[in-house]
């Protein structure tokens, strides 16, 4: 403490005082902090460096633990870095690395100080500077300091060398041209004798290779040696990661590394290294069966371990291996399924992912059943995880895994009833999506929808409102499949719908509208109903002829349909109440009909058209009027509007329906009525079928000429300026103003707008007519698969109780994972409408990262030795070169690499053509060098000799290139591909 002024040193709080103060002021911490900050603000301006240092120290502490804004201390920190005292530098650089980032303004001022410290003879100063640079580095710093770092890369001091290496990664990221300068020296360090240096280098390459592995293939021999020779687990793990990235690119490399990896697995006691070996095998070497078997065996050891960490990792490894080797999971399925009830949610989640990864279309329904039972019992969070993954798996690729849609729709209904279910949104969209895509499932969909709608309990759960919205929509849209539209109407109008948000209420009312239209229409046109039902062509083969004999059936036949007795009984009651007014003959007949209805739904669809009587219709109208009357005054626009629609329709038809004496079938005079005309129109309006619309449909509509979508509307004001009255101001100013001027304004706009828009719509219509493109007819593309097996064969015991799922599922997967004979099909898979191939998957456009490409481009240039810069004098040259080479790189990047990726000199198309041959030759030619002891297999020598001869031949062809390489001649292996391994 040399010479601080008395006042400062006496009254300044040290960092320790600050920390003690913080501990004392736990309650009023924030006021204490802001008071201290005021002090610090004063102190950092002090000319005395010790005072400044203490202040910076304090603010750094507050910044890193209490998140205060310390930007005011940025400049003092830079000042402090220039201090001759090491302690001051230390504080300053720590402050910089805690709070600076690459966009901090004062960084510019730090450049010279950093350069000075990087050149310092004190290794700790260098280390501080490197440390700071690795955090704050930006393009300017990287460009300016590359020469210094280049020098440090071969520093004789280990401490500095490893830090320089770690820093270089950041420098490359900011300034790819630095690769040209430093890369060779970086590579030399791989062969360093110091394990920490190797560790640092390997970490850097691991990072680089994970971004773009192709460029680093030529370095494989170096890494191989590390893999074989190193005994440092940290290094080995990183090297394995590098190989995990490289091996998929070069099969011969994969073959070479299997043996050492297996060796490590047998030898090592370290679980981390073991796991890395396993992961490398399952991610990158999954084609090598023996290796995978070894890995899976080790995974099993992990799974049975008591350590939850190992369990978790073991499950993760399994989930990597499952796409290619499902047997690995089959062998461990017992464990996987047990893990579904583990105490650790993370482990449960992994297990769930695995279970979902092994489902196939054969066992889907059983696994879903078991999972849903699990969902019933588990905590809300995991329950929703289960539901989410079931939903995601089933809907994958436009429901490709689902064969029995009736089953799936009912599963969706079941999910809704699980108490913790919060997946309303997803279920909603799937219900609607399936309704639109799969025609055959609609009757079942309406059935499920009805069950959901009539349950008043569901209305109380806000998470399910979206599902109910879908159910309402489905019931309205496909009401023709309903067994009992009147019941549906009651459900849609039940008092508890008041609990719904208005947007969903609007859907309910709209559906009620559709149901009403349907009822009225089929009442008024009852005579034609039978005929129309067949002409409607809903693929329901049973037309009028089928339904007649059924009508005549004795009531005894009802007993057969015991399954749906509950609902039919309801129907019965229901009908009775309505039918009591009607003719008695009718009564029995109708009664019979509805009881048969739960049978094949197709016949019910046509039959129920007969069940409307005048009385039932009048009751229906009354019901609607009482339910919707109050809503006509609703404050919600959507609700009010739709309620009025329905009420308006009723008003239109009511009078005539009540006045016209009802007659028995056959003697209608209804057709002449105004009401029936209206109903015909209404019915036609709803009759059109909705199909799925491709996401890209809008994009494909060409913008008509003259329609300018991107025009800046600000101009409008100036354009309108002439037309407007003197009182021109923006529209939002004052209501009266606006109204005054609006007339002229809108007139003007209309004039301008009218022409192009009408033109565009007509063009659009014409275009649509021509191509029939956007509103796809439902048969556009369908999976033409009629011979799908049933989802669940009845061989398996269907009755699964809620308990003992584990054993059951174990048994089940056993059966299902053995490929089953797909025999007795009970039901063909229905047609699923699919849109163009872009449906669902939209390609994420351009790659985000161009810097990686720049780095790897530069790396390739360096490795293949076609750079013209002598490596030592880069400092002066590369700035000039950078602009030129950048352009060149880009060309090189755009061109796809040869399959091996070894030949990256893509600028030269002649060379690129010969790439496969050349790369092969090189690799064998070099094999002779006894770098790797494993090369001495029989026949190797001979082959390499032969190859070499061939190589000589090639040599002539590549003369120009080779001689250029010869000029550089820094390390023997850099110019040509040093592929000793392959």
């Amino acid at each position: 403490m040399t010479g601080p002024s008395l006042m400062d040193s006496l009254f300044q709080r040290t960092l320790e005082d600050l920390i003690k103060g913080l501990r004392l002021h736990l309650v009023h911490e924030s006021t204490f902090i802001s008071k201290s900050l005021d002090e610090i603000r004063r102190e950092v301006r002090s000319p005395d460096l010790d005072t400044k240092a203490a202040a910076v120290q304090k603010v750094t502490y507050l910044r890193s633990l209490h998140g205060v804004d310390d930007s005011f201390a940025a400049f003092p920190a830079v000042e402090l870095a220039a201090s001759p005292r090491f302690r001051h530098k230390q504080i300053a650089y720590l402050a910089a690395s805690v709070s600076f980032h690459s966009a901090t303004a004062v960084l510019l001022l730090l450049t010279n100080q950093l350069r000075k410290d990087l050149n310092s003879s004190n290794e700790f100063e260098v280390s501080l500077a490197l440390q700071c640079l690795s955090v704050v580095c930006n393009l300017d710093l990287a460009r300016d300091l590359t020469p210094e770092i280049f020098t440090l890369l071969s520093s004789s001091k280990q401490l500095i060398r490893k830090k320089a290496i770690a820093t270089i990664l950041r420098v490359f990221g900011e300034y790819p041209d630095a690769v040209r300068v430093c890369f060779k020296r970086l590579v030399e360090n791989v062969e360093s004798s110091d394990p920490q240096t190797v560790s640092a280098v390997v970490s850097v390459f691991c990072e680089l290779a994970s971004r773009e592995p192709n460029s680093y293939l030529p370095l494989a021999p170096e890494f191989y040696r590390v893999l074989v020779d190193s005994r440092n687990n940290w290094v080995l793990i990183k090297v394995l990661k590098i190989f995990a990235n490289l091996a998929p690119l070069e099969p011969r490399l994969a073959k070479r590394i299997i043996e050492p990896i297996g060796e490590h697995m047998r030898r090592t006691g370290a679980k981390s290294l073991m796991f890395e070996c396993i992961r490398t095998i399952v991610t990158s070497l999954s084609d090598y069966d023996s290796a995978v078997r070894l890995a899976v065996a080790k995974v099993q050891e992990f799974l049975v371990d008591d350590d939850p960490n190992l369990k978790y990792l073991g499950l993760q490894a399994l989930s990597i291996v499952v796409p290619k080797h499902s047997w690995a999971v089959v062998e461990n399925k017992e464990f996987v399924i047990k893990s579904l009830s583990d105490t650790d949610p993370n482990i449960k989640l992994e297990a769930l992912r695995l279970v979902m990864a092994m489902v196939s279309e054969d066992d889907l329904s059983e696994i879903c059943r078991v999972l849903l039972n699990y969902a019933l019992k588990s905590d809300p969070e995991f329950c929703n995880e289960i539901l989410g993954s079931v939903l995601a798996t089933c809907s994958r690729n436009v429901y490709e895994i689902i064969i029995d849609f009736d089953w799936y729709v009912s599963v969706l209904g079941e999910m809704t009833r699980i108490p913790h279910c919060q997946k309303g949104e997803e279920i909603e969209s799937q219900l609607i999506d399936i309704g639109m895509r799969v025609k055959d499932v609609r009757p079942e969909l309406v059935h499920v929808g009805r069950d959901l709608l009539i349950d008043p309990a569901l209305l109380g759960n806000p998470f399910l409102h979206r599902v109910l919205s879908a159910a309402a929509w489905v019931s309205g849209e496909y009401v023709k499949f309903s067994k009992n539209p009147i019941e549906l109407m009651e459900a849609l109008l039940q008092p508890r719908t008041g609990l719904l948000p208005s947007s969903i209420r609007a859907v309910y009312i709209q559906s009620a509208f559709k149901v009403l239209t349907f009822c009225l229409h089929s009442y008024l046109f009852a005579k034609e109903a039978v005929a129309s039902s067949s002409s409607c062509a809903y693929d329901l083969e049973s037309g009028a002829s089928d339904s007649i004999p059924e009508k005549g059936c004795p009531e005894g036949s009802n007993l057969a349909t015991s399954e749906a007795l509950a609902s039919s009984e309801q129907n019965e009651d229901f009908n009775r109440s309505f039918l009591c007014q009607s003719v008695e003959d009718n009564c029995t007949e109708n009664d019979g009909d509805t009881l048969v209805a739960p049978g094949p739904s197709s016949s019910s669809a046509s039959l129920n058209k007969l069940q409307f009587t005048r009385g039932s219709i009048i009751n229906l109208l009354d019901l609607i009027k009482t339910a919707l009357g109050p809503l006509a005054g609703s404050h919600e626009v959507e609700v009010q509007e739709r309620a009025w629609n329905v009420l308006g329709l009723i008003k239109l038809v009511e009078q005539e329906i009540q006045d016209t004496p009802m007659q028995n079938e056959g003697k209608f005079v209804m057709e002449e009525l105004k009401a029936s005309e209206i109903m015909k129109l209404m019915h036609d309006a709803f009759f059109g079928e909705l199909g799925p619309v491709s996401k890209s449909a809008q994009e494909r509509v060409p913008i008509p000429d003259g329609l300018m979508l991107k025009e800046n509307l600000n101009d409008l004001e100036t354009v309108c300026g002439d037309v407007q009255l003197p009182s021109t101001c923006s529209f939002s100013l004052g209501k009266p103003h606006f109204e005054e001027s609006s007339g002229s304004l809108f007139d003007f706009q209309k004039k301008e707008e009218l022409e192009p828009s009408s033109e565009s719509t007509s063009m659009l219509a014409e275009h649509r007519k021509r191509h029939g493109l956007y509103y796809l007819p439902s048969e556009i593309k369908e999976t033409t698969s009629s011979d799908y097996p049933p989802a669940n064969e009845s061989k398996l015991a269907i009755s699964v109780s809620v308990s003992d799922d584990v054993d059951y599922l174990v048994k089940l997967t056993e059966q299902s994972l053995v490929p089953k004979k797909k025999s007795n099909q009970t039901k063909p898979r229905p047609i699923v409408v699919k849109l163009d191939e872009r449906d669902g998957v939209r390609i994420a456009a351009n790659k985000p990262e161009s810097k990686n490409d720049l780095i790897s481009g530069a790396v390739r240039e360096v490795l293949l030795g076609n750079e013209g810069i002598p490596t030592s004098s880069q400092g002066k040259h590369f700035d000039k070169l950078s602009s030129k080479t950048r352009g060149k790189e880009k060309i090189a990047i755009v061109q796809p690499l040869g399959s091996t990726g070894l030949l990256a000199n893509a600028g030269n198309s002649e060379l690129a053509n010969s790439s496969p041959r050349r790369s092969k030759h090189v690799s064998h030619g070099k094999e002779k060098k006894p770098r790797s002891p494993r090369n001495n297999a029989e026949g190797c020598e001979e082959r390499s000799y032969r190859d070499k001869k061939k190589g000589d031949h090639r040599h002539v062809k590549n003369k120009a290139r080779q001689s250029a390489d010869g000029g550089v001649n820094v390390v023997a292996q850099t110019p040509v591909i040093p592929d000793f391994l392959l």
Partner: protein
Amino acid sequence: MGIRFILMVNKQGQTRLAQYYEYLTIEERRALEGEIVRKCLTRTEQQCSFVEHRKYKIVYRRYASLFFMVGIDNEENELAILEFIHLVVETMDRHFGNVCELDIMFHLEKAHFMLEEMVMNGCIVETSKSSILTPIQLMDRA
């Protein structure tokens, strides 16, 4: 990048040390730390030490009242990070002599310097305790 950040958090959820290897604004850091603390501190001893959060995987380990949490990307080896955490604790132990929360509070700078010796730019560069501590002690004297 490997290691993205290192946090030391006490049982009450107060951050005692935070070292980031990528830039996040103060608000982002605060939010991230809060979320991670909520997730990790509720877990029991019997549960595994890995938590996935946003794009990170958090590897954590509890020593007495202090949680050591390391945020890594998917490329990193989880078990190696657990070993790394242990190494950090052992190193601090050797330096402070039976390290406790207070040591880290009052010597936050030291703790930062130690981490700086061990990790640079998200890469582990030094794993030998004596090599980590020698420069620290030398710098103390400087």
